[in-house]
């Protein structure tokens, strides 16, 4: 390897040293730490819901409808006398599941396609670009609503719809990055030096688009979490009686004048959950950014 690698900051350091550096950088970012802690808390709440929720999500009490907060029900009860806190905890499952799985699905589909299109260009790029254009030509929500309507409403289908809906934009970003990177001097140099495509893609293209991809995933997870809420809100996601924050918001709409708190709690849960992932991802982006100095 006779060429000079301009992305040296990423590759020159031995791995252990880099890990230590990353850890130190992470610990210097209180917001990222908060994000990690809160996101983990939501994930744990989702996993441990059967043990930590005070009531089961569907336990109705027709004699305590729309009850205010009390020792018995910390956040009160909803229109069917169900414990709101328990439903928020159970509802984390749907949100986390949809957020993470939809993003993974979108990434798994989009990144390879985007890189191939952007790096090789030619007919593959043309076909992929056109297909992406077709998909992108339909607004995300319309695609998701349409898919959910066609496939039938359920959490799995909503997740698939969200994943597919998020993919085209990611393909474009990955393609755009690959397209720009192949114009970079170090990639040209590698090509001139006869490096294999696989090596160039793995060593130069992918690592250099990583921070962009993380930014995109950062946007994608919370977007999918919110997307799940929207679809459930529209009746196209999680089906009652399974609790989900979107379903809770949808149920709460009818009671906004009598019990606005029913709409406030799930909204705050969605907000905090997506904020925590955003904070975490943002911190990671900063840390992984080769330009970051501290």
């Amino acid at each position, binding site marked *: 390897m006779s060429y000079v690698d301009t992305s040296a900051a990423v590759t020159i350091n031995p791995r252990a040293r880099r890990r230590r550096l990353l850890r130190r950088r992470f610990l210097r970012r209180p*917001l990222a730490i908060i994000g990690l802690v809160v996101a983990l808390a939501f994930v744990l709440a989702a996993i441990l819901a059967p043990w930590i929720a005070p009531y089961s999500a569907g336990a109705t009490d027709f004699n305590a409808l729309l009850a205010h907060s009390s020792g018995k029900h910390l956040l009160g009860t909803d229109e069917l006398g169900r414990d709101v806190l328990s439903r928020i905890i159970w509802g984390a499952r749907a949100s986390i599941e949809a957020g993470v799985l939809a993003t993974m699905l979108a990434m798994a589909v989009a990144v390879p396609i985007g890189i191939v299109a952007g790096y090789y*260009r030619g007919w593959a790029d*043309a076909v992929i*670009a*056109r297909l992406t*254009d*077709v998909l*992108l*030509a*339909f*607004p*995300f*929500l*319309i695609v998701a*609503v*349409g898919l959910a*309507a*066609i496939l*039938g409403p359920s959490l799995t289908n909503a997740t698939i719809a969200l994943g597919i809906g998020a993919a085209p*934009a990611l393909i*474009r970003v990955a393609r*755009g990055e690959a*397209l720009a990177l*192949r*114009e970079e001097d170090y990639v*040209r140099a590698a*090509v001139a030096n006869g490096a294999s495509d696989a090596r160039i893609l793995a060593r130069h293209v992918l690592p250099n688009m990583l921070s962009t991809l993380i*930014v995109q995933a950062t*946007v994608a997870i*919370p977007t999918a979490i*919110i997307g799940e*809420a*929207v679809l459930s*809100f529209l009746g196209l996601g999680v089906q009652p009686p399974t609790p989900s924050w979107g379903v809770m*918001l949808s149920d709460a*709409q009818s009671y*906004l*004048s009598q019990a*606005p708190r029913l*709409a*406030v709690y799930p*909204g705050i849960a*969605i*907000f*905090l959950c*997506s*904020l925590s992932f*955003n*904070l975490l991802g*943002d911190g990671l982006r900063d840390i992984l950014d080769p*330009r970051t100095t501290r």
Partner: protein
Amino acid sequence: MGGFLLRKAGAALIVVFVSSVVVFAGVRALPGDPAIALGGENRDPAVVQAIRHAYGLDQPLPVQYVKWIGRALRGDLGLDARQLPVAHTIVSRIPITLELAILAVLIGSLIGILAGIVAAVRRGKMADHAATTSALVGLSLPHFWLGLMMIVLFAVDLHWLPASGYVSFHAHPLANLEHMLMPAVVLGTGLSAVLMRQTRSAMLTSMSADYVRTARAKGLAEWSVVGKHALRNSLITVTTVIGLQLGALISGAVITEQIFVIPGFGRLTLEAINQRDYTLLQGVVLVAATGYVVVNLLVDVVYSVLNPRIRVSGSTTT
């Protein structure tokens, strides 16, 4: 340049054609027979069959498609279940959504790009942290929920703004803006957060790029470096982002229009899905897709003007 545009336009045509097939097939893949919807309370199978026949729903799909697309090419999208011309309905709804989208983009880019520039220039300072954090909050807020809460606060409690509805700008400009303010803010916040982040990130990238460093080294004034070199290149990214956000904007408009009961394009789409009004739904989605393709074509053109390398590199070998 001409060849480049021609290629792009040809590709756009193909996209529109494929979209029309997808729309047509997708609409028919929806569960729920429109003949049942049209029959109202009369579900006698004989009556439903008669309705199917009267609306041509019993013809083979390719025949239905060719008939539809043939008329659509002449600008006739057919009559919906209300016996109203679909094309006319769509044309009357587009300006409403357009106004909402333009206001949202204005609010979004004003806040987003400015905050992004400030954050990049003042990197690591208070202003940067404030802008970055607000952007994160903006990204994390479910905007339909934000809309709900704004209605509760500004309309129900404080009575400052109307909760919902729409007044045309012709009829009453001030009332129009009053009705549009909350929806545009709701729609614009999401956009501004994305734009702020992308502007900041693009600015940082281009500010650390060689030619900017060179410009600085040459002793150019900082505002000139930021304004002329870094910003110009950042705008390439930002233009793409706005183009990419168009889909999100339309999606956002769908929900925003639902929450604020604005009779725009988004509501029309949901109504059409809901009522299984095939003619209307096909027309709406086809127009949306075409519009989106055209806007993206324009984005591509702007992109290539801003960054000639993209255009040329199509024919160079590496």
